[in-house]
């Protein structure tokens, strides 16, 4: 047994030593620069949000946040190493320092922000629980769903939200419990339930794969708040600032009408905020410890928020999500970034 024990210990030691490159105690920003690439916690595969394509390149709106940060730090959006994380290990992977930031449809809640020692730096997608029904049912609002049967994943917060919503509206329902997303799709398509409920983005993604997507509607009612956003570790505010403002730069870019196509022309704009953002007026990069063209790099390589949205989940993609809540505040949504000055 001593043999086994020493074998085990030496095994652990070799593992440790071989991986002890990241052993210094510097700030995350220094660590990232030293390493030469950003370690970004991604999804293990969620359509439109983060998944590898046929060529093995990661794509999605969550992935674009990682790329924006890499563009800001290195001037090269491709210097990202993606670490696929499941919902069960995502927070420990971040806490243990294996990744520099987490960008994988994670809901910002009080307990996660405070108790888990995370810092959510913003919201890149406002999600919420919604309902999908077949068009044949002729239902246009969730208030007409009294007595319906509902496909619902067991043991999730969606289950509680559903019960609360029906109770509050004095309606009854019959739940059809399912285990996974794919099971829910199958049950819903086979007509075992009238309604399928989960996060609205999930409903859209499911619908995109149905034989006839136009035969199903996602009802306008959203019954829970699920702000999804990137997170970093607590206690490194400078790094949090970099990630926060990388996301903000994408949103401000849309607000100011700067996209990857016209970013070079916009350098000659006479709007002072545009000039500050693109680094023509120097000084704003240095505050973050970045080069002055950091936001220019984001907008030229990744694009603004609307470009990212349209490319991965917008109405012209199979997922077909309308901007809705995720439109800019001046277009009727709630997407709002503090001013760049």
């Amino acid at each position: 047994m001593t043999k086994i024990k020493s074998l085990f210990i030496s095994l652990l030691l070799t593992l440790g030593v071989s991986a002890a490159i990241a052993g210094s105690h510097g700030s995350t920003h220094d660590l990232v620069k030293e390493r030469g690439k950003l370690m970004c916690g991604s999804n293990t595969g969620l359509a439109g949000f983060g998944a590898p394509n046929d060529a093995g390149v990661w794509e999605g709106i969550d992935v674009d946040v990682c790329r924006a940060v890499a563009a800001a730090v290195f001037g090269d959006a491709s210097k990202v190493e993606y670490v696929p994380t499941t919902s069960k290990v995502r927070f420990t992977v971040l806490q243990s320092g294996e990744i520099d930031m987490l960008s994988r449809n994670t809901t910002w809640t009080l307990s996660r922000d405070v108790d888990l020692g995370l810092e959510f730096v913003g919201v890149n997608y406002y999600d919420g629980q919604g309902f999908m029904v077949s068009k044949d049912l002729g239902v246009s609002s969730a208030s007409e769903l009294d007595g319906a049967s509902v496909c619902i994943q067991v043991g999730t917060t969606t289950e509680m939200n559903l019960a609360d919503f029906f109770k509050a509206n004095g309606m009854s329902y019959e739940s059809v419990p399912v285990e996974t997303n794919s099971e829910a799709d199958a049950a819903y398509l086979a007509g075992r339930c009238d309604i399928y409920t989960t996060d609205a983005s999930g409903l859209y993604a499911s619908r995109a794969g149905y034989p006839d997507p136009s035969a199903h509607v996602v009802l306008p009612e959203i019954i829970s708040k699920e702000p999804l956003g990137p997170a970093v570790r607590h206690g490194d505010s400078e790094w949090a600032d970099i990630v926060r403002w990388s996301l903000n730069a994408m949103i401000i870019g849309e607000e100011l009408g700067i996209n990857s196509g016209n970013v070079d022309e916009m350098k000659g704009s006479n709007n002072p905020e545009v000039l500050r953002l693109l680094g023509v007026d120097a000084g704003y990069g240095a505050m973050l410890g970045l080069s002055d063209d950091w936001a220019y790099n984001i907008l030229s390589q990744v694009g603004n928020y609307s470009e990212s949205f349209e490319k991965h989940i917008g109405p012209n993609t199979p997922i077909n999500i309308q901007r809705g809540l995720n439109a800019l505040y001046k277009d009727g949504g709630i997407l709002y970034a503090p001013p760049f000055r």
Partner: protein
Amino acid sequence: MSVIIQSLSRNKFYNWVYKNLFSSWVNTIMTIIAVIFVYEIGTFFLNWAIFNADFRTNFQGELITDRTFCSKNISPGEYGACWAIIYARWDQFMYGLYPIEETWRVNITYALLPLAIIGILFDKLPYRKLFIYFTFLFPFIAYFMLYGGPGLSTVGTNKWGGLLVTLFLGVTGIGLAFPLSILLALGRRSKMPIIKSLCVVFIEFIRGVPLITLLFTANVMLPLFLPDGVNPDNLLRALVAVTLFQSAYMAEAIRGGLQAIPKGHIEAADALGLTYWQTTRKIILPQALKIAIPPIVNTCIGLFKDTSLVLIIGLFDLLGIGRAALADMTWTKLYYEVYVFISLVFFIFCFGMSRYSLYLEKKLKTDNS
């Protein structure tokens, strides 16, 4: 009916059929039901998987580049599987996200793997000694080829995936667990109380805990125990869990072999003045391992399939990479194709292992009689 069949019974084949399939009315009905059942399932599956399926082009002759080109999505109900997803994602299924221009390194490793294990599997192989030497050399070659070193660029294990991760965890896990499990089995039968109880506690603890729990522990707890910033590789963490798990199960299989050896052998060895290690190495283990081979292979098959559990800690093994393929909007919802393909790959390996264990059983039978 029986008259007709009896008239045919001169023929040996019909005789066999009559005896085994139509000997009584109950038997006849069972046979008919079974034949209908197999026929229905078989034709349904073959039609779906081969005759009505798309491979690289759809029924209009177009090359399939995304799911909307699949015949079954163009005209629902008439067509079967759409295998284009397997073609499009073949590299990912085989190598994960390994850089395309470096995949030749994985191919060489795949090609050398059979040479490395053939020496262990067949004892009458010509030049077996050379093959065994190669077996011990292989881990270093594989490490160099896959991970990189002088002259080859480094490919981090987070890029590994698909069959590569499945085979890596399966083969390395079994390879490392084997010596560990022999020590554990011997320790459990040892007369020294501390060693014995340590081995018992270890084996029973590991066997009493699901592999998923061990994987989580290795993935989540290990970094918390180690000093700050020391992050053992994700794949290695999974490997530690898989190895410990496998060693406990294999140790029990080997203990079964140890117990089957008559006490007289040990006493005879003692009488000849052999030391404990001499007795163990030359008399006990050769016999015990022979007896234990079928259960050992059994646990190996189990482990090989269990490696797919690593997908819950975010590793892209064969199953994980398949699920990632399904999450790509280009191919989403082609569940059946992906899962059938993955089961086929697993089946090939597991069936191979079980045939090998049958072959061994037969061989050992003649040895002993």
